[in-house]
């Protein structure tokens, strides 16, 4: 028996994907904030990729200065509300909280952060304004966390900013790729709207940049270009049967789920292939969509998975069964997938070996969560833009300037696929890099 009933209405969908970090009420925020010790050189702050002054904003919440708390957060991280909800706080700020050292629950920093940022977003409290026009234009490719963060930072410094986005909505994977129990679409988009209303950058939706001509046009019209293009579609497995009906990529599956919600059909038996956080999400989501048997299959042992332990735990709690040391051999079926055959693998001193022994898991759907392809072919169209051996854009790690000086980059296209908070940090840094570079010319 599945843990979750198949959702047939939006409400049932929302119930199945109940928020892991629900909004605090003022009483809870007051009591929780009063627990903060106001550590010196606070470990939480040092653990935050964007370096938010966490003790300060918690103290501000406690003293009734919620607006000031929100400003403290946004000062360091433009995507402050989404990060409060989707950050793996347990391994970042909350994981670093000194209370852990005495087995006392750490401060719920993510939820306190949302308490502050949600209020200013809901009340549309203006905290920032664009700087005086400096006459310079910057193009941003991709309205993901990195692109939006770069846009906000550039607007503060007086740049005119145009963002070109392939899809219909801003925020990239925050709205299209994050597990629905971490944040709702409305929460993501409300923050995006809040930022855009204050900072006044333009976003051109459904405007993918795909040709050399478009690139040349951008280079002509803009003083600098920021690439926040993220990653591409799910990579192929390169095995038999990948074109069968019922075989989908995890990124595509999650995007459909986030957009179509309860209308997405998830069959009874699902196999998810992969061991990263996206695999955990896809598996957990399948179970929450009412699938009765969800197998998460990873080629190595459990402890070798790339996913955070708590993400795996969450999947297991949703009813997912882990299968380890199994390498997919072929996707089976005629027209439609009906199973996956696997090799039994052995980890020999870190090297994966397998012989002839195989087994099969029957299923109606296969979700491949084995990484996203890089945007290599697009990036190769840009003159002088070098990629590293994993097809990530090479940048200077302070200015985020690429090997083509006019281009700066940040987010998944640079880091290979990390958290929203990393994109937010890199976009902000790149904006500062652009400013420094243009001023030095």
């Amino acid at each position, binding site marked *: 028996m599945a843990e979750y009933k198949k959702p047939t209405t939006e409400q049932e969908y929302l119930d199945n994907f109940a928020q892991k970090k629900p909004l605090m009420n003022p009483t809870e925020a007051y009591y929780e904030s009063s627990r903060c*010790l*106001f*550590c*010196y*050189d606070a*470990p939480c702050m040092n653990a935050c990729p964007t370096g938010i002054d966490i003790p300060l904003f918690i103290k501000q919440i406690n003293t009734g200065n919620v607006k000031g708390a929100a400003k403290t957060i946004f000062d360091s991280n433009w995507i402050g509300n989404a990060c409060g909800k989707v950050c793996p706080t347990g391994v970042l700020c909350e994981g670093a909280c*000194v*209370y*852990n*050292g*005495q087995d006392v629950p750490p401060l719920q920093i993510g939820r306190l952060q949302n308490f502050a940022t949600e209020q200013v977003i809901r009340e549309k409290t203006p905290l920032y304004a664009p700087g005086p026009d400096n006459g310079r234009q910057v193009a941003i490719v991709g309205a993901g966390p990195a692109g939006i963060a770069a846009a906000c930072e550039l607007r503060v410094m007086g740049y005119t900013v145009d963002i070109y986005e392939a899809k219909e909505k801003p925020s990239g994977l925050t709205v299209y790729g994050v597990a629905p129990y971490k944040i709702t679409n409305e929460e993501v988009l409300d923050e995006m709207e809040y930022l855009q209303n204050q900072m006044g950058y333009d976003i051109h939706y459904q405007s993918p940049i795909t040709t050399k001509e478009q690139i040349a046009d951008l280079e002509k019209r803009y003083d600098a270009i920021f690439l926040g293009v993220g990653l591409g579609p799910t990579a192929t497995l390169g095995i038999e049967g990948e074109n069968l009906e019922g075989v989908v990529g995890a990124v595509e599956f999650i995007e459909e789920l986030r957009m179509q919600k309860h209308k997405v059909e998830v069959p009874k038996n699902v196999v998810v292939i992969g061991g990263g956080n996206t695999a955990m999400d896809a598996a957990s989501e399948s179970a929450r969509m009412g699938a009765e048997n969800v197998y998460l299959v990873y080629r190595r042992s459990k402890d070798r998975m790339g996913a955070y332990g708590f993400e795996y735990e969450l999947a297991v709690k949703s009813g997912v069964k882990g299968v380890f040391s199994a390498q997919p051999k072929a996707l089976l079926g005629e027209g439609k997938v009906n199973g996956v055959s696997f090799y039994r693998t052995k980890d020999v001193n870190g090297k994966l070996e397998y012989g002839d022994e195989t087994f099969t898991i029957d299923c109606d759907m296969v979700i491949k969560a084995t990484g996203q392809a890089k945007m290599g072919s697009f990036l190769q169209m840009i003159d002088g833009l070098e990629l590293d051996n994993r097809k990530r854009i090479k940048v200077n790690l302070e200015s985020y300037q690429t090997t083509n000086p006019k281009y700066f980059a940040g987010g998944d296209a640079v880091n290979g696929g990390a958290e929203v908070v990393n994109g937010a940090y890199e976009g902000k840094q790149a904006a500062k890099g652009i400013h420094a570079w243009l001023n030095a010319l």
Partner: protein
Amino acid sequence: MAGFNNIELITDRPLIDNLKEIEEVKKYFPDHAVIASLMVETREQWIQIIKDVENAGADGIELNFGCPHGMCERGMGSAVGQEPAVLKTIVEWVMDAAKIPVITKLTPNISDIREPGLAAVQGGTDALSLINTIKSIVGIDLDSYAPYPIVDGKGTNGGYCGPAVKPIALHMLRELAQHEKITKTPISGIGGIETWRDVVEFILLGASSVQVCTAVMHYGFGIVREMEAGLIQFMNEKGYDTIYDFVGKALPNVVEWKNLNLKHKVVANIDADKCIGCQLCYIACDDGAHQAIKITEGNRIPEIIDENCVGCNLCSLVCPVEECITMEKRDDGTQHLTWAERTEADTIPTDFNDDRAGGKGHFVPTVQDALKHRKG
């Protein structure tokens, strides 16, 4: 809750109602004492009201010479408590008229509590009680710029009570209890008493009874259960049969500064196993004390710089972990020298560079090191 501030006066209903209530309470609880707290103006009024409460069945009277708001403007409450001669006169009137025991309640809004205390004793009071509330303004509304509580756009000072006033009350209690001419008079301790520990502390400093109001206002009378249970447990553990077995037992240990042993040396010690690395001790010592704690790069656990530690114990106060920072005794207990003895022997330091003043060789961080934590 650190405390409450009130601007209320004495009673919100006619005297007759209060007298009826005293009567009713005595009827229902004949084995319990009822003490009437009184505040009137003229001698005639005092004589009359004493007669009234005695007739109602009160077992004792408390003279309110403490109220620091409203009533004092009309020459009552703390206006009396602040004028020892007046206080003494009124106590004499009362003692003349009263057939039941009289407690004189003092105001803390005075520089030396011993003056009104002595006046009350000289006036013949049976007992003293202290403290009444402390004159206070608890806050200002940031929109109307009026003090709380706001009364039609204005405010006034109130009287402050609750846990925050306890240290002040304990000190004043000790001053009375140690006074040779007051020490025989029973004292009822008041001021922020909320836990059994508070109760025991007041008794150890000379109170033979305690009074509780704010805690009951906060939690109801049920809060007394905790005080009673703790007090009884304390007495059992220490082998005391009655309160009088330990009234004032801490008094001999409360001395003037000049009689403290200058040879007493304690140094802070951080238990690295318990330390959670919040570094509050480090920054407290560095910014607010003696720069006697250091941090080494890559290690969250601070270290004490022994030669700089003066044993002030600020670090142990800010440490959030139980028993993590302790003050360790470093002297061998064989030496005893007080400032009074040094003055007598004419060996007190006479200038800032005097070796006898100590403190030389104090580690001083470089300016760069000192400013390291000034980020941004």
